């Protein structure tokens, strides 16, 4: 017994090191699995407070740019409104307002934004108190940003589309060929659309929009334009490089989208699966 104690005391530093190291590796692995990072996230009151304090200053410096974006968006929306008055048939416009179904929009400000790592997250200054929940989509007027993955009362954390674990359904705007939107971790302005069938007619500059197969984003939100494309090893699917419409390195204000019918749809799908 004495010897065991002596051994523990002699090696207490190594044991402490091993213990803490195992804890941190455990946290890292947790963070690498979607929706399981329960312990360490920037959506808590301390980091949220610090980030919103610093973003208050930062936002002030970018006011001009944000005003310009607002003007552009207002302009787009005004065009749509006048079109509605002019004609009965509303043409499908590439805009965050063209969607089918019931969606609820909320505004929020990005108080922290990463884009230089492999797995990037954003922090928003709105949380459960403002009605934001997990798995809500996040967009700007120009394109999509990511999906909410952790919420506390006042802040929420968003998995950016610049994250190795993000997979978002997207499709070509002129045909219905769809694929998954992923990121290779290299350039924050270029994302990849994979698993697009070879039959899809692709042209440089074509627009990529969100697909209708996800319950998170409305169909038809603009994402980016095709920069170039290659066939993968099996020669049957395209990998497309997409230039984002959004500047992911400079996001000020965002919209958080709630799909009002999501629960109902999921319930229906679950009952179908059970049978």
């Amino acid at each position, binding site marked *: 017994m004495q010897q065991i104690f002596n051994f523990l005391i002699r090696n207490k*530093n190594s044991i402490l090191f091993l213990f803490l*190291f195992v*804890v941190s590796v455990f946290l*890292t692995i947790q963070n690498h699995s979607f929706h399981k990072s329960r312990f360490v996230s920037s959506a*808590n009151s301390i980091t949220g407070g*610090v980030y919103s304090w610093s973003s208050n200053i930062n936002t002030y410096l970018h006011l001009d740019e944000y005003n310009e974006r607002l003007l552009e968006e207002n302009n787009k929306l005004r065009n749509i409104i006048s079109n509605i008055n002019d004609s009965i048939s509303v043409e499908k416009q590439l805009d965050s307002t063209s969607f089918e179904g019931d969606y609820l929009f909320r505004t929020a400000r990005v108080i922290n934004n*990463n884009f230089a*790592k492999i797995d990037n997250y954003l922090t928003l200054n709105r949380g459960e108190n403002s009605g934001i929940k997990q798995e809500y989509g996040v967009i700007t007027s120009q394109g999509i940003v990511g999906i909410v993955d952790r919420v506390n009362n006042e802040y929420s954390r968003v998995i950016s589309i610049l994250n190795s674990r993000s997979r978002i359904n997207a499709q070509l705007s002129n045909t219905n060929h769809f694929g998954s939107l992923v990121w290779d971790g290299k350039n924050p302005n270029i994302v990849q659309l994979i698993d697009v069938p070879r039959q899809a007619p692709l042209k440089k500059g074509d627009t990529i929009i969100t697909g209708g197969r996800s319950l998170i984003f409305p169909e038809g939100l603009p994402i980016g334009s095709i920069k170039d494309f290659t066939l993968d090893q099996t020669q049957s699917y395209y990998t497309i490089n997409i230039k984002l419409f959004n500047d992911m390195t400079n996001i000020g204000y965002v919209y958080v989208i709630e799909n009002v019918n999501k629960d109902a749809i999921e319930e229906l799908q679950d009952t179908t699966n059970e049978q």
Partner: protein
Amino acid sequence: MNSKLFSNIARFVILVFLQVLILNNINFAGYVNPYLYVLFILLYPFAGNQSLFLFLSFLLGISIDVFEDSGGINAAACLVAAFVRPNLLRFSFGISYDHQNIRLANTPFGAKLSYILIMVLLHHFVLFSLEMFSLNHILLILKKTLFSSIFTVILTLLSLTLFSKKYR
């Protein structure tokens, strides 16, 4: 003793804030960021309690992780750096380091540089390996380690020079 304690606490807090508010947003050439908070581990009193030092390093890393949403990668990297520090001190400054209270500012430049460089390289290598979490990206890990280390070492040397007190 109290002033030492106070200056270490202040250094801890200031470095965390400096790191998450400014240095993490530099993104030089797309991805190169300095990790100056290693300075806390470099400067922690050499004769201090090793267990407390390990725990503080873990705390330092986890604070950065909370801000960065990176799980526990900074904590792990800091722990490794803190754990090997006594051996590294002996390697860089010779066996004499634990007998007398040497100060980093008064050591020869070569020894100082080797101590800082090895610590930073080790810390960054563990950090980026855990960030990528796959051996397929070994080249990217090495590239990031190299460039970020250069950046960190330069900043570390600069801040050591700026904030060193001259004793005669």
